[in-house]
């Protein structure tokens, strides 16, 4: 999906008022400013709060779970009782225990997929944006080939070829993200490459890769953090969807997406085994989106205050 942020990036308070400050130090101040402005918004606070609660459930859930994740505690599809607070699942395992155990994979896979996809996308996007026109065109056209597939179809194609393995799912989702991230990173790069401080570095004879690392990258981090949030929300959804389709985590693993698939036949008898994992995934994606939205608004706000166009 496209992002509304693609062309709203103009963050550098450039000008003569801050001479002799390296790009990274100048950036650090700007980044703190963005974070502070984002934190002032209520939606960011709600998002961060929700995120931390669900992260805590995922991290510490396995420690406080009353049973083992694959332990049979009763007959299948039993409604909540004193022994199983959220009832039992399709095989008679404790739903609460499996919910408490099912978050770690969701977090680890989606964070990995997003981080790897962002790294690939930023590298490709900066490279394209800071290259000669022909190299830029070629890179972006090549990325269009991956973009020719709807994200989930691309991932399914890789799964079909190599089989359903969790690390492969994360990598496939990452590769699907990369060209989309690259577009945003390229757009942000193009806005900066003509600036004086880049030209100055070039005239000093600084190597291109060094300019990319020390001058370009620090100046596109704010939009990239917003992009990271949007991509993370999308990764969580896609990875949960893949588990739901049966291509992610494999039984008997406890995973929120997989739980939904395993228990949906019994949803009329025992709704909690489906409803609770659905709510967990929903709250997590909402939390991440709220944070991303808060950051995006903060960046626009900063733009207004400094009066840059």
């Amino acid at each position, binding site marked *: 999906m496209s992002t509304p942020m693609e062309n709203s990036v103009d963050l550098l308070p450039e000008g003569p008022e801050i001479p002799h400050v390296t790009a990274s130090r100048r950036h650090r101040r700007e980044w703190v400013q963005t974070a502070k402005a984002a934190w002032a918004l209520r939606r960011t606070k709600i998002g961060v709060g929700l995120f931390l609660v669900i992260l805590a459930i995922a991290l510490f859930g396995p420690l406080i779970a009353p049973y083992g994740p694959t332990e049979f505690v009763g007959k299948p599809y039993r409604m909540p009782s004193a022994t199983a607070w959220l009832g039992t699942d399709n095989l008679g395992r404790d739903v609460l225990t499996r919910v408490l155990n099912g978050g770690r994979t969701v977090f680890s896979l989606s964070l990995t997929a997003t981080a790897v996809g962002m790294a690939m996308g930023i590298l490709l996007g900066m490279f394209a944006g800071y290259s000669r026109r022909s190299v830029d065109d070629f890179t972006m056209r090549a990325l269009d080939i991956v973009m*020719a597939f709807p994200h989930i179809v691309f991932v399914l194609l890789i799964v079909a070829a190599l089989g359903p393995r969790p690390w492969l799912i994360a990598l496939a989702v990452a590769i699907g993200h990369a060209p989309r991230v690259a577009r945003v990173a390229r757009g942000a790069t193009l806005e900066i490459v003509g600036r004086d401080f880049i030209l100055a570095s070039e005239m000093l004879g600084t190597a291109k890769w060094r300019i990319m690392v020390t001058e370009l990258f620090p100046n596109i981090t704010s939009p990239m953090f917003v992009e990271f949030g949007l991509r993370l929300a999308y990764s969580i959804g896609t990875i949960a969807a893949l588990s739901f389709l049966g291509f992610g985590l494999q039984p008997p693993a406890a995973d929120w997406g997989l739980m939904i698939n395993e228990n949906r036949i019994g*949803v009329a008898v025992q709704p909690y085994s489906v409803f609770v994992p659905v709510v967990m995934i929903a709250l997590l994606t909402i939390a991440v989106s709220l944070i991303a939205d808060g950051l995006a608004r903060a960046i626009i706000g900063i733009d207004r205050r400094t009066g840059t166009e």
Partner: protein
Amino acid sequence: MPLAKHILWRVILGFITLFFASVLIFMMTNLLPGDPARAILGPRATPEKLAILREELGLDRPVAVRYAAWLGDISHGDLGTSLAGMQQPVTKVIGRRLYNSFLLVVLAAFVSVPLSMGIGAYTALKRDTKLDATATIATLTLSALPEFVIGIVLILLLSTQVLHILPPISRLDPFAPYLGQLDLFILPVMTLTLAVLPYIVRLLRASTIEVLESEYISMARLKGLPEPLVMRRHSLPNAVVPAIQGTAMQLAWLAGGIVVVEYLFAYPGIGSALVDAVSNRDYPVIQALSLILAATYVFLNLAADILTILITPRLRTGMR
């Protein structure tokens, strides 16, 4: 004429992209580790049987030859033979399903586009009221949700736990007229609608606000035109234009969205067929379906770009 030339170039680029996408599909389903013959016959197959099947599938020929043959067959409308079940031609396996999916997407588009544009324009009119604030939070929340989460919540609400008014499974009867089975379409269409709605609402809200602040709207109002007429004749048409590209992109998203939604409702379309084919490692069907979905996706995105060029005067005349 430079405009026509530019559009033609975009179309050609679309075809080139699609050509390389087909190479990628073929490579992924042929070159990567994992022997299709073994995948079909299972781990206990004898070497002789494997060899026979490999020959049958043409796996003994060089890859480039196989790719050329595959592409040639496709251009004649021959998508190969399914490896699963009764080994029917792929065209037969997916023909009906293609129609079903087309129907689903068209229905979803016809419901979601006017609805979300209406909501967007209305919330713009009511800007900074409680209703607008509520709608903004609602669309932000909804846009965060993955489509299968929306679908499951709808199943819980409308067909199992709270109300029992809609069937939770949309297994269409291919031998009965679809008009009599309209209730089976409601939940899948609703899910897809809710998935694309938030983005279009936000687009239209933003563009309407921009239009409402323009001078020609003030002019129309000062002329004494009644507010509904101002809305209908002046604001809405101008507000829709900048939202067209984003809307078309959301409709292109449906090409991927149907995969999960069809599987969730057991709707007999190409999305659920792709999921089945991936589980069965039915390569000819996977190849055909991913190519069809990619083509749909590429050309809907292309249509979005071209429409934008055509309706934006600045781009139309500014084209060198």
